[in-house]
């Protein structure tokens, strides 16, 4: 994290506050829109429920240029490695908002094709329930994320991101070793995690 002298507690706190203030008020969303929640997101970004008043106007559909990944819609098992790759390609600092019940938990689709919650393959910060959530609910979710960001500390390690990259490395190893497609490898990792009683592969 650089050569800041962290012993000076007052300075760190203030620096944290300033940095977090800057980060939380300029959350550029990357809409990972797959289904109906994306339509609801469109109305959030429009003028009535304006999300740009939270600094989130600059929608960047590229992971390199955004810091908030919004998962808007159902994630199928075929789409799971794509979601992981997009999250992996985002630059830190990055946060994830799972919008809607499909992204949070698989929603009404408890089937072979639907990933039972995006947090099985990606670390998620805020879950916004609803099918689809009302625009005000989505705005509330972004505000909760802002509160979470303001509680962050610059010097703290982001363990979930390290675990995620370790799981990406494991996924690539398995792909090489078994010669399977990324979708099959992620599916096997998810099922194996389920067998051990856990939910996440990261």
């Amino acid at each position, binding site marked *: 994290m*650089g050569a*800041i002298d962290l012993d000076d507690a007052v300075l760190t706190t203030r620096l944290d506050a300033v940095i977090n203030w800057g980060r939380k008020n300029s959350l550029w969303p990357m809409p990972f829109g797959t289904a109906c929640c994306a339509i609801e997101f469109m109305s959030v970004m429009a003028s009535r429920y304006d999300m740009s008043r939270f600094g989130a106007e600059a929608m960047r559909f590229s992971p390199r240029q955004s810091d908030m990944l919004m998962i808007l819609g159902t994630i199928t098992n075929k789409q799971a490695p794509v979601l992981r*790759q*997009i999250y*992996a390609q985002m630059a830190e600092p990055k946060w994830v908002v799972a919008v809607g019940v499909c992204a949070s938990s698989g929603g009404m689709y408890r089937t072979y094709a639907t990933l039972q919650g995006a947090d099985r393959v990606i670390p998620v910060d805020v879950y916004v329930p609803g099918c689809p959530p009302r625009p005000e609910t989505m705005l509330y979710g972004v505000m909760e994320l802002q509160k979470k960001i303001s509680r962050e500390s610059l010097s703290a390690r982001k363990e979930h991101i390290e675990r995620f990259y370790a799981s990406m490395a494991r996924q690539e190893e398995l792909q090489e070793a078994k010669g399977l497609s990324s979708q099959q490898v992620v599916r096997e990792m998810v099922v194996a995690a389920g067998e051990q009683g856990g939910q996440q592969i990261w």
Partner: protein
Amino acid sequence: MTPAAVSFLPILLLFLLALGVGAAILVISGWVLPGLLKPNNPQKTKLTPYECGVPLRQDGARHRYSVKFYLVAMLFILFDVEAAFLLPWAVQFKTHLGTFWAMLSFVATLLVGYIYAWGKGALDWER
């Protein structure tokens, strides 16, 4: 240095000061502060080229493309410069009627070139 020039020394000083302050601002906000504050976590997966989350389908973005793009660009430059030369003439040709024949020969030369390009198929996008 002549006495007249000496009185401009303060401006030189101000200029150098502005340069220095500008450079300092850039260096501090571009190198020093980010070096201290940015999260730096280069990962192999993070540095892969972006292709909407799927594995790359080709080795890179540098591959051969058709020469017709070059031809269109070159012809554009030529006729754009010709248009630029036509503009000052258009402003004053009513008062200076003698320039008409000079301009006509200029346009005629370029017209020959245009007919050649047309005949050779340089304007044929589909080919």
